[in-house]
């Protein structure tokens, strides 16, 4: 039995690494620019927003929900941060206040989602789709429909563009790691720690695996679900701030369509949309793959970034179909086993 578990574990990792390798080698051959250091740094920077959002949405997905509002929440957070910071002329303090306001707003939205989904028993995708519409309106209300620029060189700029590690390679090319990558890594580590080392993480998995059973061991489903949705929205806010910082302005269209990309990342990362199953490493793997595909689309001339949407749909469908097929096959095996057990019990009687 132990070997079985071990092999299935290595199986997942072997599968992931294999896919990444295949994609990279294939791209490296067809597009020499792909495997340059500069481009790899570029990819990592590119996925930092997806990665943060994927880690956050993982919490919502683990309890069996979904958060389709993250794209709009990201836009909202950028807008709030800029508008608040503008009051104080983008001084460091006011920037921090703006950032804090944005994140608090995101968390409140998450709690509101949790209330509607758990207390009123409305399906999560409807709630988050509807609120994303409301949020879109709210952004326009706040910003008046135009983009909000921030002062270059202020703290807002730092969120994404500050250079943390910078040195010149022997080939003479610069190697830079920016703040956004650092935030992503720190956030991912925190999420991993929370999910795997705290009682809160245990409760999240328990609710997603079997809500009734979770209630019977004294878990407050409402409170913990709200927290999960709040983390999802909060992560979307952080992603939105990075996005705002790197594009150098806040606008209502920023982050549009990110919910689809993040969802794809999670599905590709092997996260069970029914809840209870999935890891941070899976989410990051998914974000990595999505980032690479997005990168490919921008690198290769004949492909347009817009094609991404096409691939997005195709990949989600294919991965889901494969996983459903695998699951039914294993369930069939389990069914056979259950039958054997039932027969053994019949013999006992």
């Amino acid at each position, binding site marked *: 039995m132990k070997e079985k578990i071990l092999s299935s574990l290595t199986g997942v990792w072997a599968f992931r690494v294999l896919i990444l390798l295949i994609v990279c080698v294939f791209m490296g051959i067809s597009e020499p620019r792909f495997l340059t250091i500069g481009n790899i740094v570029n990819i990592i920077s590119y996925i930092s927003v997806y990665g943060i959002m994927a880690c956050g949405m993982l919490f919502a997905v683990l309890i069996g929900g979904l958060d389709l509002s993250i794209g709009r929440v990201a836009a909202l957070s950028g807008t709030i941060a800029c508008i608040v910071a503008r009051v104080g002329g983008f001084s460091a303090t006011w920037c921090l206040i703006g950032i804090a306001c944005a994140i608090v707003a995101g968390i409140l939205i998450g709690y509101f989602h949790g209330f*509607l989904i758990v207390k*009123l*028993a*409305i*399906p999560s*995708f*409807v*709630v988050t*789709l*509807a*609120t*994303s*519409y*409301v*949020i*879109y*309106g*709210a*952004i*326009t*209300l706040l910003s008046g*429909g135009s983009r909000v620029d921030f002062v270059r060189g202020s703290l807002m700029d730092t969120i994404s563009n500050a250079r943390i590690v910078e040195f010149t390679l022997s080939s003479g090319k610069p190697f830079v790691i920016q703040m956004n990558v650092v935030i992503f890594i720190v956030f991912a580590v925190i999420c991993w720690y929370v999910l795997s080392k705290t009682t809160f993480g245990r409760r999240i998995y328990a609710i997603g695996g079997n809500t009734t059973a979770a209630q019977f061991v004294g878990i407050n489903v409402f409170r913990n679900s709200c927290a999960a949705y709040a983390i999802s929205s909060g992560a979307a806010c952080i992603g939105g701030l990075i996005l705002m910082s790197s594009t150098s302005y806040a606008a209502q269209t920023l982050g549009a369509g990110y919910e*689809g990309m993040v*969802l794809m990342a999670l*599905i590709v990362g092997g996260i069970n*949309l029914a809840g209870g199953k999935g890891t941070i490493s899976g989410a990051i793997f998914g974000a990595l793959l999505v980032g690479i595909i997005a990168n490919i689309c921008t690198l290769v*001339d*004949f492909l*347009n970034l*817009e*094609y*991404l*949407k*096409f*691939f*997005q*749909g*195709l990949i*989600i*469908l294919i991965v*889901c*179909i494969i996983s*459903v*097929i695998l699951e*039914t096959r294993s369930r069939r095996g389990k069914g056979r086993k259950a039958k054997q057990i039932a027969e053994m019990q019949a013999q006992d009687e």
Partner: protein
Amino acid sequence: MKKKLNSSTIRRFITIGLVIALTALFSLLSSNFLSMYNLSELFRNAAYLGLIACGLSVVMVGGGIDLSVGGIVCATGIICVHLSDIGLSGYMVLILGIITGGAFGLLNGFIVTKLKLTEFVTTLASGFLFFGLGLVFAYRDDHGTLMAHSIKSNTYLSLGQPLLPGGFYLISLVWVVLAIILWVVMHKTELGLYTFAIGSDEKSARMSGVNVAKIKVIGFIMSGAFSGLAAVFVTAYERTASTSLGNMREFLAIAACVVGGVVLGGGKGDAVSAFLGALFLAMLDNGLRKFGMDSYVVYMIQGSLILVAIAFDSQFAKISYRRRVKEQRLSAQTLTS
């Protein structure tokens, strides 16, 4: 034993009331709200949304959801413009547009019933796919950037022209007629009854010998075909097919269905619900814009409406369940005494 109100019929009455109230309000506040021009514009917009919503209502009554309708409108619209470019007449394009939309729906139905993916994931993903397909087929210049491309076929363009000198478009007429036909289909044929049955209780329906997979596939085909039809009319009116076609339409269509009284989860509501919901949303949009309200207010109201409507359903179900239990207890007591 009198027929009791369920949440769907109550909501239908609320929507009718709201439509009347809005008409009264807007016509009082604005002299040209009831003008021929405005009404024909209103009905054109309502029909665009309403056609999609009517098709979607079939899937939703059957307990499913179709998030790909926006994508179907986009892809079908662009494909239709290509079809007219190769020399097909507008009527040919109309038929082929319906077939294309239906084929997209068939794909959804196939994935849901044969490959056993959930409706939500399937149509979310296929929605991306169809939008992407629209981009793949979109007209581009030599540098690969998107460009506007006008429809040349006159018969095609005529589909988007007003029927009467003062306005009134074919799409509105088609919408009203199809909504009535769909109502008849849902209430008077086996297909409709079976759709209600699987939306209400899939397992029981299956036990009673209903071919659940077939009904589901037909629902998706209807949803796709109606979206395709809407796409043909809209491209004809706009004289071109842009890649933003159908953007967020799935959300508005769900909103129309839900506001009109189609219960999420299935079993209640019909094409008339979708009709009323679409009319109401279009009226709200029309009126608010007329009074200089910005689009964001409309968005916020639409988003809130969907939440209010569904919260109403879930709370209504809870309350009526409790009331029913109480009533039964009372009747049981009178029986025993």
